[in-house]
């Protein structure tokens, strides 16, 4: 089976030689976990081999990607870029609000600044228009260079494409068709997805032939990273979680190192991470409210209502209903602040009277 390197040595080792060629794959993980960096490694590797590579940018404008990747000393000038980031929404008096773009293909070399939204008319980004644009770009290359074809493509991100462009009940069918289209192009596709809910059956997850998951969590006060291959059709692979770092030269994966055990490392590392972050916020608020409660008690103020709200907040926290907990704690804090203000005013008035 033909293999395509990911551009990251350690990851290729985990894959026993790279990704099986010509198929679509998913790269997913929490925000800031390195999805765009991983996909750029993949594109750069192609460019270095003299392959034709395409980036379909839907989340970040190509100008920003270019600037961000320059910090690693990478030049993406040879990369064909399809800027499908949506323009600023045009608000009209009518109900219809279009999310638009000019759908513009160019070499990264020519990308300068963020493209300005067109004043008059913006085109709608849809899975159909993106597909048409990719098809046209591939055709243009064939006409320009005999036998020229794109061998690697990155869609960054599918979540954006779905958000901006898929409406109605046919979303799944359109997405299936789009993935089929990529297969027929015989291109190895890396699809970035931000869908973090492992229990949702998202179309791109159902149809992708493999899934690479990036992990990020806080250990003490350090950010730690890891990478895992969740599934990969047609090849044996290393199924363990491996340490990963993002340094001055991009992403490094350590395929023979182990993650020092820190309890259960489930598929839901990201969710646990997000939950812990929410819980931290609630806890910080709780400490704040408890301190205020103590102050009010010291001046013998009224605390009953606040205490009830705190109790409701704690119950909500235990049930992991973080938003609700925050709401109760805000109520408690408001009551306590009001109580302290009244007390201060009373003290001042008394002072004046004396």
């Amino acid at each position: 089976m033909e293999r395509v390197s990911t551009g990251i040595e350690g990851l290729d080792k985990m894959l026993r030689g790279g990704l099986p060629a010509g198929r679509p794959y998913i790269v997913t993980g929490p925000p800031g976990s390195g999805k765009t960096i991983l996909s750029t490694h993949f594109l750069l590797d192609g460019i270095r081999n003299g392959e034709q590579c395409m980036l379909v940018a839907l989340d970040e404008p190509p100008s920003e990607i270019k600037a961000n990747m320059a910090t690693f000393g990478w030049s993406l000038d040879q990369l064909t870029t399809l800027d499908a980031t949506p323009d600023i929404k045009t608000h009209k008096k009518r109900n219809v609000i279009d999310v638009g773009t000019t759908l513009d293909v160019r070499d990264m070399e020519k990308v300068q600044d963020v493209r300005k939204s067109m004043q008059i008319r913006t085109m709608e980004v849809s899975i159909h228009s993106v597909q048409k644009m990719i098809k046209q770009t591939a055709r243009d290359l064939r006409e320009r260079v005999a036998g020229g074809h794109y061998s690697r493509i990155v869609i960054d991100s599918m979540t954006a494409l779905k958000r901006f462009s898929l409406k109605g009940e046919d979303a799944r069918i359109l997405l299936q068709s789009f993935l089929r289209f990529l297969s027929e192009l015989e291109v190895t596709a890396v699809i970035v997805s931000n869908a973090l809910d492992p229990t949702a059956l998202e179309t791109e997850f159902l149809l992708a032939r493999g899934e690479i998951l990036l992990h990020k969590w806080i250990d003490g006060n350090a950010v730690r990273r890891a990478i895992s291959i969740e599934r990969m059709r047609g090849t044996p692979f290393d199924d363990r979680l491996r340490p990963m770092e993002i340094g001055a030269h991009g992403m490094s994966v350590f395929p023979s190192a182990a993650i020092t055990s820190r309890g259960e490392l489930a598929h839901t590392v990201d969710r646990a991470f997000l939950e812990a972050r929410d819980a931290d916020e609630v806890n910080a608020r709780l400490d704040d409210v408890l301190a205020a409660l103590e102050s009010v008690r010291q001046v013998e103020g009224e605390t009953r209502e606040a205490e009830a709200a705190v109790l409701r907040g704690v119950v909500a926290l235990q049930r992991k209903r973080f938003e609700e907990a925050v709401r109760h704690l805000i109520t408690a804090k408001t009551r306590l602040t009001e109580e302290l203000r009244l007390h201060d005013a009373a003290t001042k008035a008394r002072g004046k009277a004396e």
Partner: protein
Amino acid sequence: MKIPTGVQGLDRMLHGGLIAKRPYIVSGPPGSGKTTMLAQFLKEGISGGERVLFIVLDEPPNELLANLRTFRWDVGDIEILDANSDIRRFEPTPIVEISDEQDPVKMRDLPEGIRKTPEVESHEVSVHSLQPLLKTLLRKHGFQRIAIDSMTGLRYFCMRDFEMDVSTQSFMRFLTEEKVTALLAVETAGESDVPPESFLARGEIRLHRIRDDSGIRRFVSIEKYKGSAHEEMVYPMEITEKGIVVQGTPPPPP
């Protein structure tokens, strides 16, 4: 009469295999080994001289064949029906459906590359076209085993939202009436998910996939098996070079 599934440990869990001529589902999350189990079930049929049919909806047959080469199985005699839809057309032309004349091909005769969407008329699969086609094929060729990979693909990509429940039910009913031993892959979204197909199937083999410090671990359990006793425990399983191996099952009764 019971027939072997091709996975020895699983046959022991099923107390001798699957009762023939009924539909069963193999459920589990993506990457849990459903496709492998289906292929192993068909391979077992071939080695017993049966005619078997693999209906694929989720990946092109050329990829499936390449993936199965990892196992050194002789799968050349498996007949495969490519029910992957072509690229959909966006022009408001009437939908051209999978034709009744479409014939399965043997795995050994599969072309290397992916089938390309023709410029003129494309091949769109809907449950309304697949069902009569299958009926014709089953009557004409008398397949003894069929596998569908996957029912989720059929439900998601070949049915419109409003008809999903009714059509799924009707399709399952159709399989029952055709009296063929069928293994259907169904994707599950988490451990507690009960897919609609499991109510209608005569049995459910559930595959589990859990990540822990040592990597991905796989387990198998029988959630339902009408008309037969079966093991109630969850057993560990592995996907090896020889296919799926279930560990620690009790020995067959003497």
